[in-house]
């Protein structure tokens, strides 16, 4: 059977004018639905003096108020458990998931109907098909299958495609490696961090994964999937092509994916989303090629309408012509580049964890790392990079320490980074979203009067 290169050739190669016309039709209907059914959206639309019938062109999108995670969390606290965002009766739900808790203390709780859940898998199909997953593939999910939505939708996507799906939940890393080899797995799905860990562990077990049947590693869950040094390491260790995807619990699935042409970025699924990029301070749209904050409107979930939601993700949008695959969906160059709220200020210099990771990953002798921020004598902020060295490469340490400190300083306006070597196995390893940033600075304590002011 000869397959199309596109999951949905009609829309994925649609001229942009048609794509935008389709977005406008869907946006108007979504806003009508949200206004009629979701008290949360109705209240916010009313407060902004916005009505769905005001949407005459796509530019009218900016009349809609931006939505934040804080508003969502406040709504959940005021109307437990799900807030007043729901546009339908919770009895219609078949799935419950919640955020992994990277930001904020209150997790975002989501419900999905049969149709919404099927749509979640459908979005993964756009991405997996574009990266070359076909019915002949054997797909392994190195994923814990818990309340975090993670790769759940991708699992059902692969069933829909007709691939053989191997759920790798509740297993040791060694057990997973053995299963990947034994079952002739062709496609592995994992976070970038865990894919690196699998490769390292396989090496310790005397298994060269580059000799296995794996030819695709599909990444999600962390920005590192689009860091060139990480990708290079993974592709070398696995002897396979690595493709990035990114999604969020708030929309339930992925909104961007890397196609098999690997253009150095991720295509936006624009027939199912409107993705704006704004200046996080002025809230004005930013042009192609400039760093900004990703704002998402999703046409998928009817249960929880997601309209102009501020993601806090840092992205740079470039035109679809950057890639020669034929898709007309624009691209986020370098995928998700980090989060605005991840930024740390150390002695007046902005430090972004992903930028630090990009430099660290250029050093193949570094096995694991942690970015540790602390305060010296209650006065001066310090940043220390704690590293573990790959066994057998310990002799590189003195030179690595000096060169790494210089590289990091050079990329951060001369900021001094302390580099500390840790014993092997001391630093935590991660299966899901890695948390390699530890900010140990004391939290300011305020008096009750100050807090009430």
């Amino acid at each position, binding site marked *: 059977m000869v397959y199309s290169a596109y999951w*949905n050739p009609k829309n994925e190669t649609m001229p942009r004018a048609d794509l935008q016309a*389709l977005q406008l039709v869907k946006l108007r209907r979504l806003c009508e639905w949200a206004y009629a059914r979701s008290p949360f959206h109705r209240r916010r639309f009313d407060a902004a003096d916005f009505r769905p019938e005001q949407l005459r062109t796509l530019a009218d999108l900016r009349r809609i108020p931006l939505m934040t995670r804080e508003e969502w969390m406040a709504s959940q606290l005021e109307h437990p458990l799900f807030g007043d965002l729901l546009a*339908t009766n919770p009895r219609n739900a078949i799935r419950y998931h919640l955020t992994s808790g990277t930001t904020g203390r209150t997790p975002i709780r989501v419900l999905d109907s*049969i*149709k919404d859940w*099927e*749509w979640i898998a459908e979005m993964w199909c756009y991405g997996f098909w574009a990266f070359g997953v076909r019915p002949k593939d054997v797909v392994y999910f190195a994923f814990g299958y818990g309340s975090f939505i993670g790769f759940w939708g991708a699992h059902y996507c692969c069933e829909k495609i007709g691939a053989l799906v191997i759920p790798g939940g509740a297993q040791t890393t060694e057990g997973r490696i053995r299963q990947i080899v034994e079952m002739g797995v062709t496609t592995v799905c994992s976070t970038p961090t865990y894919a690196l860990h699998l490769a390292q562990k396989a090496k310790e077990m005397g298994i060269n994964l580059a000799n296995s049947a794996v030819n695709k590693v599909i990444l999600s869950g962390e920005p590192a999937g689009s860091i060139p040094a990480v990708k290079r390491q993974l592709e070398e260790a696995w002897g396979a092509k690595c493709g990035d995807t990114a999604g969020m619990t708030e929309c339930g699935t992925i909104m961007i994916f890397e196609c098999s042409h690997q253009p150095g970025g991720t295509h936006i699924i624009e027939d199912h989303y409107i993705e704006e990029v704004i200046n996080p301070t002025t809230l004005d749209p930013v042009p192609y090629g400039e760093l900004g904050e990703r704002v998402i409107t999703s*046409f998928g979930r009817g249960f929880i309408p997601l309209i102009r939601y501020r993601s806090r993700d840092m992205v740079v949008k470039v035109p679809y012509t950057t890639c020669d695959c034929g898709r007309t969906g624009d691209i986020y160059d370098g995928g998700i580049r980090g989060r605005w709220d991840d930024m740390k200020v150390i002695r007046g210099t902005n430090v972004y964890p992903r930028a630090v990771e990009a430099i660290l990953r250029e050093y193949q002798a570094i096995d694991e790392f942690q970015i540790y921020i602390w305060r010296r004598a209650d006065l001066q902020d310090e940043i220390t990079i704690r590293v573990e060295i790959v066994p057998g490469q310990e002799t590189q340490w003195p030179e690595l320490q000096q060169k790494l400190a210089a590289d990091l300083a050079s990329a951060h306006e001369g900021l001094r980074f302390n580099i500390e070597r840790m014993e092997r196995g001391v630093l935590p390893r991660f299966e899901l979203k890695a948390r390699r940033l530890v900010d140990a600075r004391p939290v300011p304590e305020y008096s009750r009067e100050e807090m009430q002011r």
Partner: protein
Amino acid sequence: MMDTDLLGRSLTAQEKELLHIYQALKNLAEYDDLPPCAAHNVRKALACLWQVTNDLALQFEQLSDLGV
């Protein structure tokens, strides 16, 4: 039955057939006396046909009033 997609373009024969099946499943989902095996599989099938017809820009609507 519509003759055009969401952009006002004429439907192909296949698209007409898909929309026809989608509508037939919606009609079936309206019944409240279907046996459980029919009621639930019809809803599952309707959720799948919603994806196809939505992907192809043939419709964009919500189905929660049908429990889908």
